[in-house]
Structure formats: structure tokens, C-alpha cells
């Protein structure tokens, strides 16, 4: 099959690329555009390590072909940092020791960010639901949930 032209915005920058018909968004981000913060774990939608925000929603980038996202906007973990300033979630993950091996962290942060963008005041249940598709083998989730909650509380008191 021929290559397919695709335009997409990644972390607020526009790219015009030609992709293989079977190239996944994950491949494009990691191999073509060098956003290696996006991780590949299971490759079949189960672990969430490859999660990115696509047009406002958390999706598994291993579950999307790049040709499907022409004209879309993608945010990876790298895009959470704006002008050298960490996202409050990133700070909280450090402060609450929510990172051990770190493999799940980029996807976890992205799922949490997608949640907070849609619902700035989630309760614990809503937080748990939001990270349901992100597996963590190290932390047992407690610190992760606490870290996210701390950002919610901070937002509330501001």
C-alpha cells in the first residue's frame, strides 16, 4: 500500500508526515517524532503505558493507526511540561513517591491529566475509574491516587 499523508499537532507543534498504512500512533510518536516518553508495554490496549491525550480524550496510542488521526491534536507526557514548568501532577507524583520503576508513569500522568481537564473536581471513585486502564506493577496504586488527590485539593483551595 502507498504511504498516507497526515497532518497532526503533537504537544502544540504541527507536523506534516507520510505514514505507513499500518503505522500505529505509538510508532509515529516514538520512532518518527521521537516522543519516547510514550511507552510500549503490552501493545494490545491492556496496560496503558502508551496513553496519550487525543483531541481531549485519553486513548491507547497502540490502539490507533496514525492515518485515523489526521487533523487531530495529541498531547504526550512531554507536553504536560509547559515552558519548562512541570504539570502540578508531575510534582505531586514525585512528592508522593508515586513513581517506582517509572514505566507506567507517563501513561498514568496522562490519564490523570485527561480526567482533570474534563472534571477538575473528581472524587476518589472517579480517580480510580480514570486510571483503570493503566497498570502499575510496583506501587499498588495508593500513592498514585493520593498524588492525584493532592492536586485536586490544591486546585480547590486556590
Amino acid at each position: 500500500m502507498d504511504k498516507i499523508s497526515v497532518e497532526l499537532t503533537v504537544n502544540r507543534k504541527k507536523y506534516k508526515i507520510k505514514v505507513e498504512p499500518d503505522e500505529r500512533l505509538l510508532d509515529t510518536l516514538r520512532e518518527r517524532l521521537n516522543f519516547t516518553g510514550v511507552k510500549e508495554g503490552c501493545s494490545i490496549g491492556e496496560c496503558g503505558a502508551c496513553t496519550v491525550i487525543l483531541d481531549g480524550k485519553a486513548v491507547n496510542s497502540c490502539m490507533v493507526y496514525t492515518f485515523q488521526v489526521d487533523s487531530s491534536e495529541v498531547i504526550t507526557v512531554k507536553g504536560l511540561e509547559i515552558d519548562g514548568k512541570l504539570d502540578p501532577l508531575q510534582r505531586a507524583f514525585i512528592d508522593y513517591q508515586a513513581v517506582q520503576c517509572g514505566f507506567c508513569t507517563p501513561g498514568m500522568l496522562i490519564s490523570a491529566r485527561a480526567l482533570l481537564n474534563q472534571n477538575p473536581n473528581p472524587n476518589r471513585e472517579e480517580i480510580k475509574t480514570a486510571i483503570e486502564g493503566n497498570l502499575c506493577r510496583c506501587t499498588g496504586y495508593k500513592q498514585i491516587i493520593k498524588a492525584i488527590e493532592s492536586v485536586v485539593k490544591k486546585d480547590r483551595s486556590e
Partner: protein
Amino acid sequence: MKKQSKDVKNRPTSSGRDSKEYFRPKSKKELKEILKNNDILTIIAGGTDLLVSNYQKLYKIDKWLDLDLIDEFKEVKIFDDKIEIGSMVTHDRLVRLEKIKELFPILHSAALDLGSPQIRSRGTIGGNIVTSSPAGDLLPPLLVYDAEVVIISDQEERKVDLNTFFTGPKKNVLKEGEILEKIVIPLKKDKSRGVWKKVGKRKALVISSISLALNIVFDKDNIIKKAKMAIGSAAPVPLRIKSAEEILIGQSLDSIDYIKVAKAAAKQISPIDDIRGTAEYRISVAKNITKSALKEVTK
């Protein structure tokens, strides 16, 4: 195509967006034109089932047909006597639609339970139906709500009762060149009460081990006037459990013989052994799930 990650950069380049092997129609009309002029097309909706099978199986795709830009397929329309849901409506949207929650609570619950947020953002109701997995979570609810599907091809349009749509595990009546356009669910005057139950091994991402949808209409004296029950993951296709429904009709809340209904349900399914559970285990789960669904609906 299995190891896409490796040498993506080194592949030969050829022509671009107007590829003859890749179509993204913007309307139903354009879609029909494409169907008319092309034989073998691989239809892609959200891709959450397709990318898994492509990753695992390594087969060649000749031509892509991506339905994502057809706005007509994303519409949800409410009429006096029915509701129409476009095949490209995602699970996430289904969950957020107040009308669905109000009128079809079991469908709402099943969509809410399905996969993970990431899967719900991409996966569609049409993809769930066409995949025709016995474990497809939206299927038992759609069966108890008497859903029909509208199927189109370049020249024809037909309506199929969902009860006759599934012909085996991952098999259905769709023919080459046919597209699922929308789902039609009748709106009934009677007020009903419904329950959705799913038993699985893990909460998130579980492809259900067994699931049950139950919808009951009581008359003014609290006698069961109508009963619809469907079970998923237990037989080669998701199916209505008519024997159990018949037992329920005419009963009052406290006269229901739970054991009898549960036995009827267990008898009608023909469970299969697979990695998600043995047949025997499923029969006992079917009994328990039926009992607990009945208790919940009569609460």
C-alpha cells in the same frame, strides 16, 4: 506487519493522501460510491478490536475504509416511538448521553463497565456489534431492548432483528460490502425496571466471564407483565433466555421461584470452555447471576 515499531523509517515512500487504497468518506453518499467501486475493503471504526487482531495475526490489508468522518453515523436521534444510535457512537458518548441513561439504563451500565477509559474513548457501538463476540458487553442489553440494526450496501438497505444477527462466535449475517449504519431501539410506553450484571476476573479490562441483562415490566398490581433476559459470554452467541422469561411472566415479586428461573437459564446456555472459565463453572455462575439479578430487580 507485526513488528511495526522496528523499521518504520526505512520503508519506501510513494504517493500520499489520495491513495487508492485508503478511504475516509465524509458522508453516506460518498461511502456508497466507494462501496460501489471497490471489492475488498477493511472497515475500521474505533479500531480497538481490529488493532488487537492485526497485531496478533499478521495479515495483509488491501484497502482501508475508515468510517470516522461520516457525521451521519455519529448521530443519536430520538423519535416518539424509537431511538436511533449511529454505529460510530463511542462507548464514552453513550455513557454521557442523559437520554440513554434515562431510557435504557442497562445499556448505559454496560457501556460504563466496558474496558477502560481509553477503550471507551475509541470503541464504538457498531464495532461491538460487528465483532460479534459472545462477550460483547453491549449485546445482552441491546437484545433485551429489542434492538434492530440497519445495514447498508451500495444499493441496498435492510433491517435485521439483533436476535437473528449473530450466527456464531465472531460470526454474523453481514455480507461483504455491507456496513452497519445504525441501531434502532423501540421506545415502549410501559415503565420497566432493568439490571445489568457482569462477573469477571478483574474489574477493568475484563472481557466478561458471564454477563446478564434483565428487563422487567410490572403491571399496576406488581405482577410481571413482560420479562426479557439475555446472557453473554456463556454460549457461542449472546442470547435471549426465553425459557426463563416465560417462567417469570405472571409472577408477583414474592412468588418468583428463583431456583427454577436460574435452572432454566443454566439449561438454555451451552457454555464453552475457554481461558476465561470452564463450562461447569459457567453454569453455576449463570445460576447465581440470575438469582442476584432477580433479587435486585425486585428490590
